[in-house]
């Protein structure tokens, strides 16, 4: 049974050391390099591994500005067969609800007859993990989140180990299904220079707001129910009282302070 697999990926800043611009009160993105979200690399790798085992096709999609083509090329270099950029000025400022909607339409437009959709468990910039489950709901298909291992794919069913608080849950579901994956399920293989060069020359496809039959009011910031009302840098809670002297003296002072505070 060959598998028709979609992988949803996202471009994220290469560093978490972002600052708020005091003038605009927005994030200062200037000069910050962008990369593929680390969990999404594992999703691409898993799709390629599944294709190697079962045959089929891997399609990478991302919603973002035209610069996000860079991560689509990376996905192609890793082994994805097709890549689509879902991009439109009207999509800017979308929250997770709208992003799920847009990506769901993109999948339906490209190929309704899929078996699996893979996503990283969350993007490391906003850490929400909401777009995958949102897409599964909108597509009316099963969802398996926080997947550490795919145990079996056969007879139109998939069995996985999902990471839960006190261990792992073994869950089986009928496909089509959407899965969000952790960094546990495979080792990402970095593409060789030839694949990278080939991917650089590949023509990538794109879909805009019109292609997906949205009114501009349904998408982007205007279609998003949530609003970012404030951004700020967390402030340190307290400055420590430092005990000085040699090790033994400092520790004695500390123990004394703990006694006075009735902590011990």
């Amino acid at each position: 049974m060959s598998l028709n697999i979609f992988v949803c990926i996202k471009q994220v800043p290469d560093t978490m050391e972002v600052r708020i611009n005091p003038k605009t009160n927005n994030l200062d993105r200037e000069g910050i390099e962008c990369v593929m979200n680390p969990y999404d690399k594992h999703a691409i790798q898993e799709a390629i591994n599944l294709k190697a085992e079962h045959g089929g096709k891997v399609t990478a999609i991302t919603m973002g500005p035209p610069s996000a083509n860079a991560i689509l090329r990376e996905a192609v270099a890793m082994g994805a067969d097709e890549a689509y950029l879902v991009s439109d000025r009207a999509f800017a400022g979308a929250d997770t609800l709208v992003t799920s909607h847009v990506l769901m339409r993109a999948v339906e437009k490209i190929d309704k007859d899929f078996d699996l959709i893979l996503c990283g468990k969350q993007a490391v910039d906003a850490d929400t993990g909401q777009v995958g489950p949102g897409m599964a709901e909108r597509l009316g298909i099963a969802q398996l989140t926080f997947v550490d291992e795919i145990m079996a794919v056969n007879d139109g069913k998939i069995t996985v180990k999902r990471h839960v608080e006190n261990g792992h849950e073994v869950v089986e579901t009928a496909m089509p299904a959407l899965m969000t994956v952790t960094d546990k399920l495979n080792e990402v293989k970095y593409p060789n220079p030839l694949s990278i060069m080939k991917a650089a020359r590949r023509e990538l496809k794109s879909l805009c707001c019109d292609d997906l039959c949205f009114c501009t009011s349904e998408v982007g910031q205007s279609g998003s129910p949530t609003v970012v009302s404030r951004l700020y840098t967390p402030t340190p809670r307290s400055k420590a009282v430092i005990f000085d002297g040699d090790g033994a003296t400092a520790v004695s002072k500390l123990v004394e302070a703990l006694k006075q505070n009735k902590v011990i």
Partner: protein
Amino acid sequence: MSTEKQYKDIMVFSEVRDGELQEVTLELLGKARDMADASGQRVCALLPGRGVSSYADTLIACGADKVIVVESNVLEKYRNRYYADMLEGVVEKYKPSILLFGATSTGRDLAPRLANRIKTGLSADCINLEIDSEGILIQTKPSFGGNIMVEITCPEKRPQMATVRPKVLKTPEEDASREGEVIREEISLEEGKYLTRVIELLKDAKSDQGLEKAEIVLIGGRGMQTKENFDELYKLADILGASVGGTRPAVREGWIEESLQIGQSGKTIAPKLIFNFGVSGAVQYTVGVQNADMSISVNKDAGAAIFNYSDYGIVGDASEVVGILIEQFKQLM
């Protein structure tokens, strides 16, 4: 189109996992109670599952005015689509203005599914909630690994939904004298509608729940330098009756298992007392310990950021100080 007027009250999704009511539910009830009192609303706990109704008293004692019990064989084990169907029915009938979940493997799986079904806003993994005079929920969440805090609101759509990280809100004191109403809700759910089954739960051999419940926690970071030095923390832990955790660098070095990692990409803890040994104090870490009552740090760099998040500090070699602490506490205890 949802209008704000019909929607009222604060609903808390009460999570029972493997037969146990999860602590985060109580933490949410405490916060919901405060917000309800401030805004003239009521707190409603939704308690779905099988054989769960005995928890209704606890939910009331922790702040619920009303408990909606939905008992069904179909809901015995958590399966997202059945739970989403159930919640859709409950939201339709009770119209809560705010709907809260723990940011657990269940909450983070279920809440986005539901939000997309009922087309409302949802914020993820919040570390604080406040309510304003208009009943708008102000949801604070860390972004960029904790470097930036974001406040999110959902001004028009209802309910306003959020998942909240465990251990960031205080568990309320149980008050057995509180009174509340228990409603048994029948929601028709048909087994077999969705082809998903939970085959088994493979529990971790070593329970890491101890770390989250411990009153005293010792954390080792990169400054512990070697596995041998790191292992000395267990001696000190034995003397103090403490649990041991690690920073991401310590986990990467292989000094401690990943399930005991503290911080944005690990666990959040709120012990009475925490010791940070050789921890630099990157926000990715401090976001996971900021609710500790008292914090003590040892680092050889006097300018280390961790001292900005600590009550007491010692500038010195972390493993050397661990050795001295072992000697001094041995004599005390």
